[in-house]
């Protein structure tokens, strides 16, 4: 019986090559995209699961309530992990803290390399996390100060092929580390990737023993470390969280009460950090929304492929009607026939799957570029996915074949054999076309809107001029010491308009601390506000605008200690209304109610976007500092950029000889903030193209079939005087109506989906009706082109041919 299924299925495929190709191609495109998306999703979901104890590891996160403001940070305070272990040994087995290493220049026997991804970490690193040691002892690799473990690729870069264990590395600041361990490279699916880890205990000499080991309340209010805890075998994170109020009372509240602030402990399971973390001061993370979006897109593409199969299978039902009837007369039960047709669709899906496997091999490198991943696909190495694809293919076959199976098996033999094949008016087919084009239109609207939003972000007035701004970051203490001379030298070049320095350029994290501000009744209150240090030239370099008061004056020595500039948002949030000039602001509140600096507001700067446009402009203090700041911003002229950069590099080597010259343009850096959106924009463009391509493939098949069916009608009409355009109109009219109707389904769905997506941005483009019209018209034109292509061919056929055969 099964053999009979196979034979008939294969012969049917071969006898109807054109439709078979459409079906197989449509499904294989859908399956190819599904496999690629599955690889991407699988990779996203696999983050940090290579750590043996990942299900017991949690990242600690900070939730501050300072007055009304609420801030969430990935960074935590130094004593948080140790204190939790100390208080809850039943539940917390271990902690491990990481701190970013600032000075990342490494030297070995005259060879210098620069590496960003270097952290200090506790010696418990190897107990909490799983890293494969190639050389060295995991037990004590980070036990002593000035020890370091490095990855294979980092070792190769600086040491070449020799075993680095026992060798020493010197940093740009003259700290010497002994290599105590060589580990395999950190897997790409780790949220915290590093090339080298220095022993945390090294920091003790910089912090001082007292501060390093302090469990005083104040120490809990100074964040800057990524902290992880590993639970005991029987530990439960709920116990820790439930006990937090007492912990808070003991360690955190004393200082919190003094500054009117609260700290709430937050934890994130390690495996969730990559996709679910939405806190400040975080490492680059993924986004679960994109995982869902990609999943839906894969489903869309498969659905469109399945619909093609259903449409064409039922459209061709007349061709199979006699076969079905004969089989029924010969004794085939309906159920048997259903399985026969389902088997055929499973066979088509299987052929599509084989094609998809080949396509994935070919496309994967391009997809990796697009999605910025390093995905690989192996039958043996990724057995789970392969099984998943087999199951999906089976389900696709089952789903695609189910409707044709029920439809075809319901033919009444008596009717069919009498030649009365019930004329199928194809209303379900039209509904399926409607569904396909609804999906395609949603994708087109999505693509248009994502592109519009990206352009909006690019063109939005940021409150400063980000173009032609070169950013340099000085890591060398020598460079910092000679900063003023360096600046003066740079200013000498005619192509350099202005040079300013700052602690943080827009796009970088801005520090936040608690300050005191003057209320309307003259008293002072605390509030956590972001701040940035600048020099006298910074505001002019950035083209930022003072809208009230004045800027810092080089001639007024007191400005650095007694004055401050605020942005508009600060004035608003602090309730200073339209006249904030002269208001008192205590920069950096101390525990005794005093401030580090007692300043007065001398000017208000027009709000500028120092964070990404995902966020509203928050209050910001722009403080003048007489100390050199590490970030240098250079406004350069648009022409001869290369020679200007050459000059800057020349001067760099003069003033910062130990560090390689690295520069960036601020507008590029700011665009980096929208990489995820740009990626999804590109993916949407490709996938919406594929959606409409598969839908058109099906439409082309249906149009071909309709044209075949209506050959006689077309010929009679032509004999009666119909022109080619009349015929094309008749054939295209019906499909066009359904494509137009598809907009009714697509528009509201697209509107709500995009509304949700745009809510990610504090500044978003308005959804315009024009975009929706354009998407609808695009879909209609593509559909018309597809149908017309076939209709014109049908209309041009000599009517005598068709009538002769009739």
């Amino acid at each position, binding site marked *: *019986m099964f053999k*009979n299924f196979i*034979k*008939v299925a294969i*012969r*049917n495929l071969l*006898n109807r090559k054109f439709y078979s190709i459409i079906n197989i191609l449509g499904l294989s495109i859908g399956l190819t995209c599904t496999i690629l998306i599955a690889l991407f999703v699988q990779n996203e979901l696999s983050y940090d699961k290579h750590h043996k104890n990942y299900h017991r590891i949690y990242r600690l996160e900070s939730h501050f309530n300072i007055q009304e403001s609420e801030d969430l940070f990935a960074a935590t305070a130094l004593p948080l992990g140790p204190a939790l272990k100390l208080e809850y040994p039943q539940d917390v087995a271990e902690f491990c803290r990481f701190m970013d290493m600032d000075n990342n220049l490494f030297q070995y026997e005259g060879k210098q390399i620069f590496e960003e991804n270097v952290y200090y970490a506790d010696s418990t690193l190897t107990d909490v996390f799983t890293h494969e040691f190639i050389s060295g002892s995991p037990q004590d690799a980070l036990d002593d100060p000035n020890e370091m473990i490095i990855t294979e690729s980092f070792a190769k870069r600086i040491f070449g092929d020799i075993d680095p264990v026992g060798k020493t590395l010197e940093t740009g600041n003259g700290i010497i580390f002994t290599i105590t361990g060589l580990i395999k490279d950190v897997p790409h699916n780790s949220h915290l990737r590093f090339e080298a880890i220095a022993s945390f205990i090294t920091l003790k000499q910089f912090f001082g023993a007292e501060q390093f080991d302090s469990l005083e309340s104040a120490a809990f209010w100074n964040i800057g470390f990524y902290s992880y805890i590993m639970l005991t075998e029987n530990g439960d994170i709920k116990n820790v969280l439930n006990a937090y109020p007492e912990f808070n009372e003991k360690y955190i509240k004393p200082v919190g009460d003094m500054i009117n602030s609260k700290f709430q402990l937050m934890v994130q399971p390690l495996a969730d950090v990559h996709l679910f973390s939405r806190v400040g001061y975080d490492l680059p993370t993924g986004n679960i929304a994109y995982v869902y979006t990609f999943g839906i897109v894969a489903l869309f593409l498969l659905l469109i492929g399945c619909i093609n199969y259903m449409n064409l299978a039922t459209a061709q039902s007349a061709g199979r009607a*006699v*076969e079905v*009837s*004969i*089989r*029924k*007369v*010969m*004794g*085939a*039960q*309906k159920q*048997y026939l259903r399985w026969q047709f389902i088997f055929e669709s499973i066979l088509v899906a299987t052929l599509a799957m084989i094609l998809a496997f080949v396509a994935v091999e070919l496309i994967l490198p391009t997809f990796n570029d697009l999605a910025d991943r390093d995905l690989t696909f192996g039958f043996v190495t990724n057995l789970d996915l392969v099984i998943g694809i087999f199951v999906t293919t089976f389900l696709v076959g089952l789903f695609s074949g189910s409707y044709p199976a029920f439809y075809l098996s319901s033919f*009444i*033999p*008596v009717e069919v*054999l*009498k030649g009365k094949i019930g004329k199928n008016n194809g209303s379900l087919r039209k509904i399926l076309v409607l569904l396909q084009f609804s999906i395609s239109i949603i994708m087109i609207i999505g693509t248009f809107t994502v592109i519009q939003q990206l352009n909006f972000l690019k063109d939005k007035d940021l409150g400063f001029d980000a173009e032609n701004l070169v950013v340099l970051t000085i890591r060398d203490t020598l460079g910092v010491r000679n900063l003023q001379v360096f600046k003066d030298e740079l200013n000498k070049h005619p192509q350099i308009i202005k040079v300013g320095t700052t602690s943080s350029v827009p796009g970088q994290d801005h520090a936040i601390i608690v300050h005191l501000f003057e209320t309307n009744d003259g008293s002072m209150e605390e509030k956590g506000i972001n701040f940035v240090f600048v020099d006298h030239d910074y505001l002019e370099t950035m083209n930022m605008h003072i809208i009230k008061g004045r800027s810092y004056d080089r001639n007024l020595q007191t400005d650095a200690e007694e004055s401050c500039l605020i942005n508009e948002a600060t004035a608003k949030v602090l309730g200073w209304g339209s006249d904030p000039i002269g208001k008192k602001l205590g920069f950096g509140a101390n525990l005794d109610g005093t401030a580090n600096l007692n300043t007065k507001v001398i000017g208000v700067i027009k709000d500028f976007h120092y964070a990404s446009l995902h966020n509203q402009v928050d209050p910001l203090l722009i403080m003048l500092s007489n100390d050199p700041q590490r970030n240098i911003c250079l406004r350069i002229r648009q022409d001869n950029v290369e020679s200007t950069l050459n000059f800057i590099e020349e001067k760099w080597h003069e003033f910062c000889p130990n560090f390689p010259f690295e520069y960036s343009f601020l507008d590029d850096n700011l665009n980096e903030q929208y990489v995820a959106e740009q990626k999804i924009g590109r993916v949407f463009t490709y996938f919406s193209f594929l959606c409409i391509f598969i839908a058109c493939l099906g439409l082309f098949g249906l149009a071909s079939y309709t044209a075949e069916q209506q050959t006689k009608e077309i010929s009679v009409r032509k004999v009666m005087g119909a022109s080619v355009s009349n015929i094309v109109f008749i054939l295209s009219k019906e499909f066009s109506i359904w494509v137009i109707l598809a907009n009714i389904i697509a528009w509201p769905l697209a509107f709500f989906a995009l509304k949700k997506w745009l809510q990610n941005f504090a500044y978003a483009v308005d959804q315009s009706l024009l975009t929706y019209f354009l998407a609808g018209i695009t879909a209609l034109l593509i559909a018309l082109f597809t149908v017309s292509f076939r209709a014109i061919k049908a209309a041009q056929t000599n009517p005598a041919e068709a009538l002769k055969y009739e």
Partner: protein
Amino acid sequence: MIKTVDLTKIYRTDEVETTALNNVNVEIAKGEFVAIMGPSGCGKSTLLNLVGLLDNPSKGELHFNDTEVSKYTERMRTNMRKSNIGFIFQSFNLIDELTVYENVELPLLYIKMSSAERKKRVTEVLDRMKIAHRAKHFPQQLSGGQQQRVAVARAVVTKPKLILADEPTGNLDSANGEEVMDLLTQLNEEGTTIVMVTHSPSHAEYAHRIIQLFDGHIVTENIKKEFHL
């Protein structure tokens, strides 16, 4: 073998009601060869379809081997049909995607016969129909006469008790028509009951009895040959 009691079939559409068969009472004995004749639209094929359990009557009874089957479900009719009845059609109704061999083998698949037995049975019947040399051909590669021989082979391969032939010679030239009639006669002589719808008076002469239908009624029944059980 077959007995109908007031067998009636009414086709209804939204606006029109057509009585295709009207209170037909007929008995067909085991081993009999009956021809049904009448003008187009008189209900010949409808009667054949009802007797062949391809359709349910609107009214009346249908007894097959003394069992009342008119109220059978589709599944029950299918089961009854596949082991008892063979069909031959005017337009052959072979499946284009299957070879001659596979077409003939088809009914055996549905009665779940073993592969070896199927092979034996199909080979035998193809030999008998003198079409074995075309076993691997597809229907389109055969002449009309050859296609109908294949259809006859397919109808007899399960050794049914009853063969229903709906104008089996309608699409054939006279020589091929005679050949098919000889085959049917031969099968009947071997004990198979045959009910044949035909327009051809000469081919009706092969039957033991001719039933004339007009507007859904039996108008005459002529016994052409003596028939003994």
